[in-house]
């Protein structure tokens, strides 16, 4: 007699893919996920509360550390929120420089994600390949800003360092390099049969679900929701780019299915889009000052006479980053609310994981490019109360074994 047993499966608070803790509680029927609950908060650092005791300039560097990978996105949204509340102007040249840094960051973030996704499905050659080519943009950022991450480039009312004439060829060479490797990279990521087998039809988020759950970034766009802050909401240099449009699977003539493969399509195409955006900015870089107020003390002195509130939004590599800041005659923000893209997309994991195989859990979780991190164990609690603890290698091996099966099917 066929009897299906349902049992709970705990993954985390440290889980097998990323370096930040989160706990997934699955209800599993056989090899299929029948239900999922997500438990956040293991790494809450109270940054919003800490910012109440940092002045407006110190807060920039605090916020840069919300996320190491998209470390310009949070300061970008924060500075825009403060500028919105206070009416401080940002000179055109600074807007273009901000745009260039943001797009360079998007390129390295998307390549990082491609490597992580490849690793999660047991394709480590591709993991090493994408992380190897990612080095070029990190080198460029280091030469431009002095750091591979946490660039410390932004200030309220502009940027802190200019894009000098000697740096422009460095950025141009980097763009040339990515145009050279783009064809091969996109062929591997999008045309490889084993990747398609693993990613197509896996972790589906429909258009209606993306709208209802307020999904953002490549996760939303892969479901056909053409939502992109860069195109929807005028800011930085983007309003000058009339040709810019959100990337969806329709750009390769594919009807959006909202699966893991479509999320890969969006990110791969966005690599090329970022090159085009940076090229535009270099070709049209305005002359003039890079900040409207020179000096941190002058900025703080101005802001502590302001009473108001403002919103700042930016399209980070993972999706919309938004900050809501309240200023009230103080040299610190009296309140700041921060929304990172994973905050919006985490809820979308529920429909994505529903019905998935256990072996697909790592790639589905990784597919939204979450900002939570690497795990070392999972625990199965069986109906009889017995507990079985499995390590990260075991869960990863499930995914690798599935990839081997897929590859043998492809070669057969």
């Amino acid at each position: 007699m066929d009897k299906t047993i349902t049992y709970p499966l705990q993954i985390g608070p440290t889980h097998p893919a990323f370096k930040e803790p989160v706990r997934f509680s699955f209800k599993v029927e056989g090899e299929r996920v029948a239900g999922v609950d997500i438990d956040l908060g293991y790494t809450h650092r109270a940054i919003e509360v800490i910012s109440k005791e940092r002045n407006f300039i110190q807060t920039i560097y605090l916020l840069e550390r919300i996320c190491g990978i998209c470390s310009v996105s949070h300061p970008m949204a924060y500075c825009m929120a403060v500028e919105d509340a206070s009416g401080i102007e940002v000179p055109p040249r600074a807007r273009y420089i901000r745009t260039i840094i943001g797009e360079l960051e998007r390129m390295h973030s998307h390549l990082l994600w491609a490597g992580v996704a490849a690793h999660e499905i047991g394709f480590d050659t591709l993991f090493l390949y994408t992380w190897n080519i990612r080095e070029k943009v990190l080198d460029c950022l280091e030469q431009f800003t002095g750091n591979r991450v946490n660039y410390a480039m932004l200030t309220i009312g502009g940027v802190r360092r200019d894009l000098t004439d000697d740096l422009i060829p460095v950025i141009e060479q980097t763009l040339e390099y990515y145009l050279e490797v783009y064809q091969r990279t996109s062929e591997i990521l999008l045309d490889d049969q084993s990747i398609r087998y693993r990613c197509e039809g896996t972790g589906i988020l429909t258009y209606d679900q993306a709208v209802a759950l307020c999904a953002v970034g490549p996760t939303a766009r892969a479901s056909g929701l053409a939502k992109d802050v860069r195109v929807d909401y005028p800011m930085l240099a983007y309003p000058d780019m009339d040709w810019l449009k959100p990337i969806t699977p329709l750009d390769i003539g594919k009807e959006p299915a909202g699966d893991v493969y479509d999320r890969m399509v969006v990110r791969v195409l966005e690599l090329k889009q970022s090159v085009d955006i940076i090229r535009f900015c270099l070709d049209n870089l305005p002359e003039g000052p890079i900040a409207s107020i020179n000096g941190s003390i002058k900025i703080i002195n101005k802001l502590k006479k302001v009473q108001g509130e403002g919103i700042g939004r930016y399209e980070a590599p993972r999706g919309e980053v938004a900050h809501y800041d309240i200023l009230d005659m103080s040299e610190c923000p009296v309140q700041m609310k921060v929304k990172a893209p994973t905050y919006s997309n985490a809820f979308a994991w529920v429909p994505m994981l529903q019905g998935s195989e256990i072996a697909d859990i790592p790639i589905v979780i990784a597919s939204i490019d979450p900002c939570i991190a690497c795990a070392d164990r999972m625990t199965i609690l069986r109906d009889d109360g017995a507990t079985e603890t499995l390590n990260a290698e075991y869960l990863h091996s499930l995914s690798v074994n599935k990839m081997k099966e897929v590859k043998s099917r492809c070669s057969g």
Partner: protein
Amino acid sequence: MHPDDIVARFSSELKGHFTASRIQETAEGLDGSKKRVRLWLSIDRDVFHRAVSLLKEFGPPHICTPMASKEYGDTIELIYPFTMNYAAEPFGELVVILVVDIPRDDLRIRSVCDLVPGILYMERETMEMLGIIIEDIPDPRRLFTPDSLGDTYPMRD
């Protein structure tokens, strides 16, 4: 979608419960031809759910950040930043911020998860960070903070 249309709809439907509105426009782009538009709407707590359903008539609202707050003598002002008209026309997105005063001796507001399911995490955060009870919330558990925190609300002044 024009902010005046939303203001007119709120004004006719909510009447005396719709207390104030403010539109802020900023020119963007080198030629200043694109407009970044934010709309603040102040409403009474009793009509908050109705206000979000009115907003939904114009399209699906997207919750943009967790709810911010300001504290005055007898009230806490709760701020809901939504965006509308996204993925529609280029640079046509509209930020709509609903502002609701909640009396300090009765910290309650109705959930809008039935209208905007994606707001659930933010309502859970509001409960634990500000101590405001979200009525009819489908999942009232804490989101980030441990149960041991008890009645301490980190984002309160």
